[in-house]
């Protein structure tokens, strides 16, 4: 490549139609910047989305794009990777698209380890259909379809991904340029399915749902940015996470007083990942960054070809294969042999 592409080179000519102030704008900026940073090749890059506000994403990126149907983006992207494993595929989905109508496909894409990035925009609400509660909405969410408050238990995207066997799980906040940028770059570098939950603010239907840890004055105390092999500390290094053996859970300790008790992050540890993704304010900080990264397994599409003796190359002719059975010949006089 002669010239390094810039973030603006990945912005398409289409007019962006999200609500003013929507968190999606910030995500779009971070993604185009990440594409430039990782040296993405536009014609080899494909964004595949389902339905919902976030699903408009492909129109705004100057790459190939496919805006499909509700919940099915992982299935369509799987077929795409089977047809052409060389493509750099990003799946854009939301909490309703990915965890409600499309939960089955998301589960299977993760357990198969299909080689694409899954960006799940979680705003805990159905935006495009005008504000109904979603499968990630907290109990008690008042919405047009739950006027007295929702009462069904929400699903945690991180634990869903862990349960489905995901090998890469990361989390970031829409407007956190630095945190989201790092997570996107890491996701891009992973062979297999990389699952990224983006906490995205819906300014119209669920404004401020993440304020308990995104407000300026709470960032330090209510967020922990995990880094592989580094101590799990937050609140300017004053507090740390430690393992409480009797309850098999995490606890917060004074990091200065008890530095040896503070755990170090291990991206390979699924148990630790489980503990981290289930932490929530106000008792605990929200864990952000690359929570789990277990490389070493082949991607599904790689295995798909490797499993075939000819790597799906056409090495035989149908005319020969259809003769690999008992044949008989009828001579011109019609009497069989």
């Amino acid at each position: 490549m002669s010239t390094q592409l810039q973030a603006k080179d990945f912005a398409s000519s289409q007019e962006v139609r999200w609500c003013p102030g929507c968190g999606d704008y910030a995500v779009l900026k971070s993604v185009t910047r990440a594409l430039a940073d990782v040296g993405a090749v536009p014609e080899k890059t494909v964004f595949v989305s389902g339905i919902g506000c976030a699903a408009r994403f492909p129109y705004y990126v100057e790459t190939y794009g496919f805006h499909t149907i509700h919940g099915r983006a992982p299935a369509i992207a799987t077929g795409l990777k089977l047809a052409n494993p060389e493509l750099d595929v990003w799946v854009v989905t939301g909490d309703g698209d990915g965890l409600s109508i499309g939960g089955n496909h998301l589960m299977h894409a993760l357990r198969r380890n299909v080689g694409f990035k899954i960006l799940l925009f979680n705003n805990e609400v159905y935006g495009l259909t005008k504000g109904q509660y979603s499968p990630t909405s907290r109990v008690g969410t008042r919405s047009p379809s739950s006027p007295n408050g929702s009462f069904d238990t929400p699903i945690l995207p991180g634990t869903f991904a862990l349960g489905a066997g995901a090998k890469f799980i990361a989390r970031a906040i829409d407007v956190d340029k630095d945190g989201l940028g790092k997570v996107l770059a890491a996701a891009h570098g992973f062979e297999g399915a990389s699952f990224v939950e983006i906490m995205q603010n819906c300014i119209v239907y669920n404004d401020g749902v993440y304020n308990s840890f995104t407000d300026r004055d709470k960032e330090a105390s209510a967020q922990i940015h995990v880094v592989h092999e580094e101590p799990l500390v937050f609140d300017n290094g004053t507090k740390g996470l430690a393992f409480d053996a009797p309850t098999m859970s995490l606890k917060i300790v004074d990091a200065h007083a008890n530095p040896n008790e503070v755990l170090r992050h291990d991206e390979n540890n699924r148990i630790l990942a489980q503990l981290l993704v289930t932490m929530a304010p106000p008792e605990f900080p929200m864990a952000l960054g690359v929570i789990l990264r277990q490389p070493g397994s082949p991607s599904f599409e790689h295995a798909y070809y490797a499993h075939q003796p000819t790597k799906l190359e056409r090495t035989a002719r149908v005319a020969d294969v259809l003769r690999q059975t008992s044949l008989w010949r009828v001579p011109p006089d019609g009497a069989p042999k």
Partner: protein
Amino acid sequence: MEAQSVVVRFAGDSGDGVQLMGTQFVAATALAGNDFATFPDYPAEIRAPAGTTFGVSAYQIHLGARPITTAGDAPQVLVAFNPAALKVNLSLIAPGALIILNIDTFTSRGLAKAGYKEDPRTTGVLDPYQVVEVDLTKHTLEAVASFGLSKSDAGRCKNFWALGLVQWMFNREVASIADWIGKKFAKEPTTRDANLAALRAGHAYGETAELTAAVPHVGTGTAKFPPGEYRGIRGSEALALGLAAAGELADRKIIFCSYPITPASPVLHQLARYGHLGVGVFQAEDEIAAVCAAIGASYGGAIGVTSSSGPGIALKTEAIGLAINAELPLVVVDSQRGGPSTGLPTKTEQSDLYQAVYGRNADAPIPVIAARSPSDCFEVAIEAVRIALRHMTPVMLLSDGYLANAAEPWLLPNLDEFPRITTNAPGPHTVGDEIGTVIFNRDPQSLGRPWVTPGTPGLMHRIGGLEKDIRTGNISYDAQNHQAMTQLRADKVAAVAKFIPPQQVELGLEEGALAVVGWGSTYGAIYQAVRAMPAHERESHIHIRYLSPFPENLGELLRGFDRILVPEMNMGQLASLLRDKLGVETVQLNKVTGQPFLIAELVQKIRSLLAAKPAVHSAPKAVSGDRK
């Protein structure tokens, strides 16, 4: 008595090996130079309780010295492995038929399980038939006694014992079957030798026991075939080979995405073995994922194919609409079965024609074609891919449970004679052109757009399910544009008619008193029924492969007949379609028993129509200009 053709039916428990016995008998039939057609008729339960009527599995073979196109009406030979098999099949067989009964199973317990209060051998119900009683189990156990098998393993050899006996009845040796056993069980020498012993013992039994008097002489002779190279073929295998051939003709990978369902799964199983033909299979998590992955594969430049039966096709419907909107190629194979809902999974029906032609939200037409015989599945599969790539559209290919499992001899095609399948390449363009106008610059004849796949430099674009501008492909909610796009989608499917051959008459003249019009797997039965008429001067057989759109000459052709009879294994779906698209009125003959048509019931209907003068002359009406 020298019969021109004979119908043989094997019936027993699902675990008796009846299907295996049938396929081996067919292989031997082919080697003997007979024409044949088969009909495996098996229950939905994998292993229903032994000895019950609902667990009966059957395999019917029609073989003969003349061309055979159906699995036959009434069996003249029935091999019944137990009382339940006799009970279920007694109503099907011909008067005077030979029944071979395994009397070891006619115990009070066996009779009770079949629902017989009294032994049918003593009540007179078997009087119209020739009954041969054989201690099948006992003889089999004796034949394999030296191999030290358990009693149940030894008993499993009885299908080969029975096959040996049947081979003897047809004056055949057992060498070819013995060869097969040798290869099949090469790694299990004891099983191999026991089965061989059972086969030979059954054959010897026919020769030495005093059976001769009871067995009718079934000299079937040999059929007259066009010269060439032949093999036996099942519909599902022909369909799989046809898809692989289409990939070869288009020089593209086939990515076949499917979720297991009866009776469509054999196509998946077959294609799973064709990696060296450039075919990849993907067993998806559900029907929706299967069609979506196929669409994704097509988007990526492979030929995406998905396959299911009626209930699964219903689940795929929304995604088919996406492929229509995105103008992507896709082949959807529907192996129809009895319905609605779970219905009759293992029984055949033609009741998905409405679903194929009309069954989607909004104005969403797609081309629909149907296979008419097991070997025809090969050509129809190629044709489906050709249409999908030329017009950049989903295509529905209708098969059914009968075709999927039935077998017939196949004159091997010369693949060099098939035209290559071309794909639409983008037209010339320069930097600065609006990319969408290149992507959606459709061929004026086919209205198919160029197939531009990710990875192509300089042509990055976005597609999706939202309505798009007819020229640029950008999202458009413009009223006139939607009108134009809806018209374009209709015109595109109509344009298929310009590329397909005109409708031929299979048998008879191009005008007359009666046209018998069918589609799909009723081909053989209709053909034979029309052929059975004294002279083909008044009645003709027309069989439609292209169901949507119809061939351009079909309306004109049908107007040349006084009456039109439409036999279908549904409640009149083609009849409705003919009325809708061509303004043609028909006489319906509908059968939904899960069993194919019998030639005799078609002959009877044709005779009654030809005999009765229509009270009001009901020649088809003229077609109004734009109804097509």
